[in-house]
């Protein structure tokens, strides 16, 4: 089940659990500004192929 989180929980996940942050906004918006180290996978491109670089053992946070 997906868990909605706030900023403090996001920071905790990054710091303590090596969370993988995924920016699902259109690439143009990602290019303008994104959370440091976030990777870009726009929603329309979210497929089994594009998510293959993500580890399934670590948390994934989308925004």
């Amino acid at each position, binding site marked *: 089940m997906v868990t909605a989180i706030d*900023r403090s929980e996001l*920071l905790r996940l990054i710091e303590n659990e090596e*969370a993988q942050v995924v920016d699902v906004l259109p690439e143009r918006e990602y290019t303008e500004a994104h959370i440091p180290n976030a990777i870009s996978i726009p*929603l329309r491109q979210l497929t089994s192929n594009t998510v293959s670089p*993500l580890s399934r053992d670590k948390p994934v*946070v989308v925004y």
Partner: protein
Amino acid sequence: MSPRAACRLERLGFEKVYDYVAGIADWKASGLPTEGTAAAVQRVADATRPDMPTSTPTEQLGDVRSRTRDAGWDECIVIDCDGLVVGRLRNQAWEAEDDTTVENVMEPGPTTVRPDGILQPLVDRMTKRGTTLVIVTTPQGGLIGVLLREDAERLLTGEPPEQVWLDCEGCPGRWTVKP
């Protein structure tokens, strides 16, 4: 958009999926650093300094006055127990008796700005109004620091004040004006 992405990731077999609902707007508004082309624009956070004196509403003015002057400031920001900005001490407020409670002389509900605001228009407004200091807070009102017009003008003219790395418990930290 992110709830749909989170659901799709779950269907793709990911078990630990989280949705940062407030997204990049919330991240930027809290003054945290970003990467990307927009990061080159100078923001309020770039000239914000965290070293101003603070007090609580229930302290005695005499104690706060001494602390503020010893630190080399003539203003003090009043925050409540949750770190939210509730007032400001300056000018005539300092003339009250030592045993006056801060909340009785502070300016309640001072104007604040967000750290992700673009710096140049803010400095233009400050110059027009003769303002030398503004308080920088999170969208929820939590104190981040203050912006001195003098610091901001130096930054905008290519003579930035010396900066130091500010550690932040539980967050990535950021560059800030050296106290």
